[in-house]
């Protein structure tokens, strides 16, 4: 069980000697991932989804708020204890071409952490070998062909599987999948998504799925919660299927509208709209709704006060004028 409360992150950028700019990357984000559960964070580039992932695995320090793993608040723990807990959260990088050391064979990569685990568990080298085979088979690779290869001999999909196998060596509770399929050949994407779902269903590993593509979030299995982020704020949350069917927030609708449709088999929803203005990272914080300047449905009152995340039936959304619009593709 991993819980996040009021997480905030502000980046300071030194613009000049005396002047420094701030970028609010994450604003008051709270959620919890039960063990074996899955959450997807979605939003466009720069919305803070990767920053949340990096804070969770200890690569960034939150400006405020707390990360609670199994009831222990990370910020109150000593460094050694914190590192031990953080090992239970493993990040799978977006770019499988960067995340494997080009000078190591697959065997060396897996052995590095497995030897450490073997020492902790007081097991011999035989255990390391066995576990290596087991993990590679689990992620759908053939140990005999792959063990002594270097990363440059593998395809993007194989690399991503090796990265997942390496993350599994430390027996994590949570995998953070940060845009795992965006750099992989289209034909291999589903295989990776299915692997993540299998890990979740068979080994009770929770998944935090970070993506900009709602469609791939649907492959994670049932009762996946979807959090839509805009400028570091949660603007809508609910179960994935439900949000896709009944999006309330205009930003969620914009994301759904941007999904390509299969012409001839599907037709666009009748309320489909396309955002024309670009996402801007402004250093002045507007007092009103963050999305008001781009929202095609914004009213003058939107820029006066910022909407809170309120419950509405089964879902939560942060909008003063929520309205279900039919933007997802429908079959002909």
């Amino acid at each position, binding site marked *: 069980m991993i819980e996040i409360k009021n997480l905030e992150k502000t980046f300071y950028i030194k613009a000049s000697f005396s002047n420094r700019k701030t970028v609010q990357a994450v604003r008051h984000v709270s959620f919890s991932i039960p063990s074996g559960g899955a959450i997807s964070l979605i939003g466009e580039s720069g919305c803070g989804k990767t920053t949340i992932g990096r804070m969770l*695995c200890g690569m960034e320090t939150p400006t405020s708020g707390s990360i609670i793993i199994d009831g222990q608040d990370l910020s109150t723990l000593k460094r050694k204890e914190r590192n031990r807990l953080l090992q239970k959260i493993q*990040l799978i990088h977006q770019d499988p071409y960067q*995340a494997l*050391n080009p000078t190591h064979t697959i065997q060396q990569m897996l052995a*590095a952490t497995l030897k450490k685990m073997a020492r902790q568990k007081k097991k011999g080298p035989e255990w390391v070998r066995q576990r290596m085979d087991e993990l590679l088979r689990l992620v759908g690779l053939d140990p005999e*062909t792959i*063990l*002594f290869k270097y990363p440059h001999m593998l395809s993007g999909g194989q690399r991503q599987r090796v990265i997942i196998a390496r993350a599994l060596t430390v027996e994590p509770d949570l995998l953070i999948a940060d845009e795992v399929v965006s750099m992989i050949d289209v034909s291999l994407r589903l295989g990776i998504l299915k692997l993540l779902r299998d890990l979740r269903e068979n080994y009770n590993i929770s998944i935090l799925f970070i993506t900009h593509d709602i469609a791939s979030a649907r492959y994670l299995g049932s009762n996946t919660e979807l959090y839509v982020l805009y400028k570091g704020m949660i603007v809508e949350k609910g179960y994935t299927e439900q949000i896709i069917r009944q999006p309330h927030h205009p930003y969620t609708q914009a994301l759904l509208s941007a999904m390509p449709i299969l012409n001839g088999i599907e037709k666009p929803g009748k309320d489909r709209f396309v955002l024309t203005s670009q996402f801007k990272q402004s250093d002045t914080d507007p007092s009103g709704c963050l999305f008001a300047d781009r929202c095609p449905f914004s009213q003058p009152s939107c820029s006066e006060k910022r909407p809170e995340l309120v419950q509405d039936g089964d879902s939560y959304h942060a909008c003063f004028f929520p309205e279900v619009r039919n933007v997802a593709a429908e079959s002909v």
Partner: protein
Amino acid sequence: MTTTETAKTVKAFKPNIYQGHSFWRAAWRAITRKVSRVIGFLIIVMFTLMAIVGPYLYPKELPIDPNNIYAPLSWKYPLGTDFEGTSNLALIITGARYVLLAAALGALFTVIFGTVLGLIAGYFIGWSDSVIMRITDFFLTVPSFPLLVVLSTVWNFGHPLAMGFILGITSWGGMARAVRSQTLSLRERGFIEAARGLGLSPFYILFREILPNVSSYIGMNLLTSITGCIYAEVGLFFLGVVPFHVNNWGVMLNMAVFSAGAMSSPDALPYLLSPLLALLLLTLGIVLFLDAVDEIFNPRLREDI
């Protein structure tokens, strides 16, 4: 044909077992890929053998031949003779050990200091980086050759280890800066972040994850600094600022120019040119061999499957 018959004709798919390749075999393949590399390798091997067995081939006191002073090139004296009638070839061969050992040790010290300090500064950044880089700047700005001249007056350079240490300590600065800058870019790469996330120790990350990625650069530097060190020490001997304990190439140059008058009398020219030839040949060998180093250390270039 029925389906069962077709199924029989299809071979069951069996993936090839891939066992990898050994580092030494790959290195050998990289060397033999081009003729120039083989020549470079042979020259280096020849000089190495010369340094190891050379002094045992001749008596401790090289024979002198008063009838053959400054003899021209002949079968008996392939490189002529010196002012005492000693064979120049014998002088080159027996003199190789000190020169090459000191140069190899000098290059080794340069690479070890430079690599370790560069890795630490680049990986840990912060105050350790500041401290190490200020020390590096200090060593970079101190002119090394005059310093060597000054040091040679107070230090006994009789043993190659002392010479190598001094050569190494004056020349690691550039190496440390280069390794640091490469480490700075590597530490932001995904696989280093992943290693940190997996809880691997900083020692492992530095020497097992980052070091292999800069190893081809280090290997090339090791070879080029061998030539640099040879020039520096031969220069010291040539200038005569270091006492002559043993016969070596630098001493030969010094004697040829300052005692034998090789600059004015053509008779003594073989005495001057033979150590120069040895230096030239060794440099050539190293330059030709350098080409193979990148291929040896970089697995992406070792395409042999």
